[in-house]
């Protein structure tokens, strides 16, 4: 029975992230529109968009290879698996031990690897520009993420997200490196999700676009999968911030159904707060030039490094 319950909770989480990701996107879009004094689209508009895209035929460029057709599925699968392994409403999920924070980072890296390759497959200049810039951003964002993972695991003594969450819950100490890691993670999250000031998710055909340039040739179900993956990625980063830095409300492993429901409520609350904070930040800042982004991400890298350094130095005390 224990196994079945654990399995069902794991699958519940997989479905939960899948169901919530477009809603979060719709929420941020709507809130942003309201802040800009626009009416904004409905909360469930992303679902409608996805369904519409899924039902349409996929138009492929003449010289698209098999990689171009396979990539969306792989990107979606890698992102989904990564999102399913982050504790959202409960810790100690069935499969959470199969992948720690470093693996989750690497899974997102795999998704990006295929996305960048897919951008180059048709051989257009826009695809190339997107992939090239994505590769540059990634070469800063990924190490920064690893640095954050290092900092957290040096604080909590584990790279497992569940253990980190439980440690942060149980301790009353405030740590400087924790603050540094949070700061760095926010920067990475903004850059990785292509939000302002790094990239603008709302525009196409702007010279500075990155993510949109890579997926320019996609259509139909392929595009739907990639859009879904990027929605999942936003959700993943918010969940990550929630579970590592604000783990209150997470249901412990093997908790009762009521505790689980409470966990889901806390999770949704955290997403609302996180999404709103993101929107407010995005609305109050201007997009930066592309070559300012490495500096911006470099700050995250340096903060992460500083965090580890502090942990290393104070470990012997």
């Amino acid at each position: 029975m224990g196994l079945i319950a654990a399995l069902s909770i794991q699958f519940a989480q997989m479905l939960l992230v899948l169901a919530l990701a477009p809603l979060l996107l719709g929420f941020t879009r709507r809130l942003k529109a309201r802040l800009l004094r626009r009416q904004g689209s409905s909360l469930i508009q992303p679902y409608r968009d996805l369904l519409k895209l899924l039902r349409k035929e996929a138009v492929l460029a003449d010289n698209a290879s098999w990689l171009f057709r396979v990539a969306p599925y792989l990107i979606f699968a890698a992102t989904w698996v990564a999102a399913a392994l982050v504790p959202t409403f409960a810790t100690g999920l069935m499969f959470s031990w199969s992948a720690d924070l470093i693996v989750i980072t690497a899974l997102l890296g795999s998704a990006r690897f295929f996305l960048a390759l897919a951008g180059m497959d048709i051989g257009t200049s826009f695809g190339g520009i997107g992939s090239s810039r994505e590769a540059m951003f990634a070469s800063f964002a990924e190490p920064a993420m690893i640095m954050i993972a290092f900092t957290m695991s040096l604080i909590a003594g584990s790279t497992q997200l569940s253990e980190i969450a439980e440690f942060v819950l149980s301790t009353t100490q405030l740590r400087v490196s924790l603050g540094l890691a949070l700061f760095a993670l926010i920067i990475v999250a903004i850059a990785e999700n292509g939000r302002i000031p790094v990239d603008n998710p709302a525009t196409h055909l702007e010279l500075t676009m990155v993510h949109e340039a890579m997926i320019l040739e996609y259509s139909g179900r392929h595009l739907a999968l990639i859009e879904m993956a990027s929605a999942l990625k936003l959700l993943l980063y918010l969940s990550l911030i929630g579970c590592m830095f604000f783990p209150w409300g997470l249901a412990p492993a093997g908790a009762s159904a009521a505790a689980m429901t409470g966990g889901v409520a806390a999770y949704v609350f955290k997403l609302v707060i996180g999404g709103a904070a993101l929107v407010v930040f995005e609305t109050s800042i201007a997009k930066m030039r592309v070559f300012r982004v490495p500096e911006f991400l470099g700050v995250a890298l340096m903060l992460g490094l500083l965090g580890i350094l502090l942990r290393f130095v104070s470990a012997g005390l």
Partner: protein
Amino acid sequence: MKAEVAILSGIVALFGVAILSVLLPSKRASAQVYVLCLVICAAMFGIATVRLLDPAAYEPLVLPLGLPGVGALFHIDSLSAFFLLVINLGGALASLYGIGYGAHEHEPKRVLPFYAAFLAGMNLVIIAEDAYGFLIGWEFMSLSSWAMVISSHHEAENRRAGFVYISMASFGALTLLIAFGLLANAGGGVGFAALRAGAADTQIASIVLGLVTIGAGSKAGLAPLHVWLPLAHPAAPSHVSGLMSGVMTKVAVYAFIRFAFDLLGAPAPWWSMLIIALSGATAIIGVLQATIESDLKRLLAYSTVENIGVVFVGLGLALAFKANNVPWAAALAFSAALFHVLNHSLFKSLLFFGAGAVLVGSGERNIEKLGGLIHRMPQTAIFMLGGCMAISALPPLNGFASEWLMFQAILVSPVLPQWGLKLLIPAVGAALALSAALCAAAFIRAYGIAFLGRPRSPQAANSNEVDRWSLASMAILLALCLFAGVLPGPVLDALSPVARAMVGGKIPIQSSIDWLSVVPIDEGRSSYNGLLVFTFIALSALLSKQIIHRFASHATRRSPAWDCGFPNAAPDGQYTASSFAQPLRRVFGRQAFAAQETVDMPAPGDMRPASLRIVMRDRIWDALYEPVATVVNRIADQLNRVHYLTIRGYLSLVFAALVGLLFTVAIWA
């Protein structure tokens, strides 16, 4: 005892093949030699595997060879067994690849004898139990690989590569010779047992470590002695490049381990600082060069430099833990390093074989002239994609597994008390993370430009898939990469006796852990399950495909590329390799390569084409090698005068040398 005899007979057989290859008629020689090498290497691989899983007691084989009265000693301990496994696996698959690839060789006899001798030399280094056999094998390895580097001697670039290589190899061998000499002098013998006794003096041990870092490090490609590697490895035929990058560098790693962990006894903490600092720099330098390089094979060679850096970071950490008496952590770092040795030998061979396939199929090595190969060479494209994923450390392939272990080793290092290490290790951790990410960028670029997009030259447009032997070899390598990535547990268990012998500790037995997970320390701390991650990704990808195709849509339509409404029909309009690297060059260029971009934009009305010129320099070459080369040239010029002396002059030189020697002998006593 039996395994030593078997491996020695294998080595003798390989030398026999080398001689045979000269005698055989040119036409069929190639395939026959490679088949023989394949059989011999496969047999030795089997023997090594058995010995690794079932270590024998110390009982060296003594043969009446070598120095009179001393004899030659041979022994295979678990460390040797592991490296024999790596070498012969690489050797066997390179031979399999060579059966097909060798047919395209213009002058096979410039390669074949040296190929067999090269394999024999590497095996000899590993099984030697004394300095004599070790150095003989080392020289065989260096000289025969040098001969293959200059096999296409018509190209000036290859001749230069050969010259740089032979200089560095001789220099490296000299330092190893001195290292052995110091130990043998103190210990009173050339057998490894006597050498261990010679290392009792810490001062001698430290000097020897410095010498070995130079000697083995230059062979492996440790910065700043790596400059020959990106010149020499690509110059050889591709399967030999694969062997040199994937396997020969591992022999150098073996030499380093043999000295640092075995012969030199208890390490001093500062040794590890030296190694960790050098290797962190190596990883970054190698990968930065790889991100801007456009020659496919040279790009791979630079990435070898990076991976050697990663391996040496692991070894440096293991040394640090060993010096501070933390055996379990030392075992973790050491296992991570050895695992990466194995993984790198697999995926780098695969990538070099793929590069060879591209070279055969299209006649091009420069990725700026390739493109769209995925359509013309579909199978090679799949294998190369796998190789690129593995080297970019993407789960669930093997490169990620060893990288993950390496990170775990870094995460336990706050226990080290030395201040130098406390400051160094976080920095090196960041360097490793940065190099992993940059490596992914480099291989996205290499694969995306060479295999995807549209062909950039007629050669690429008319390329053909390679023969089945080559494909089989690549397929086996990719399967091994996947196996080691999905099931790292059994591999780590096999490495456990090596770690115990070298650092005196071990990591938990992985086969006793549920669900085939990997747990390097304990379950609460970290665990990784490649199999589960792989299954999850595969299942969710398949599931989503099934559901979408079943319930939504599976219709596709082909049409011209959209490209924002302005598709450019000319393939030149695509992103090129150098434009792909431009953002990274712009960020790192000035510091790393002294890059300078000059844009020449003609004034309006001027009909001249605009131009962009990029000048990059290898700073290490400028700072370290250029002065040495200048000095050597100047000395050579001075010595050149000696060529034009009179006979009386020469006689007086000989006389002076004789008197000088006698004088030395006289005052020595």
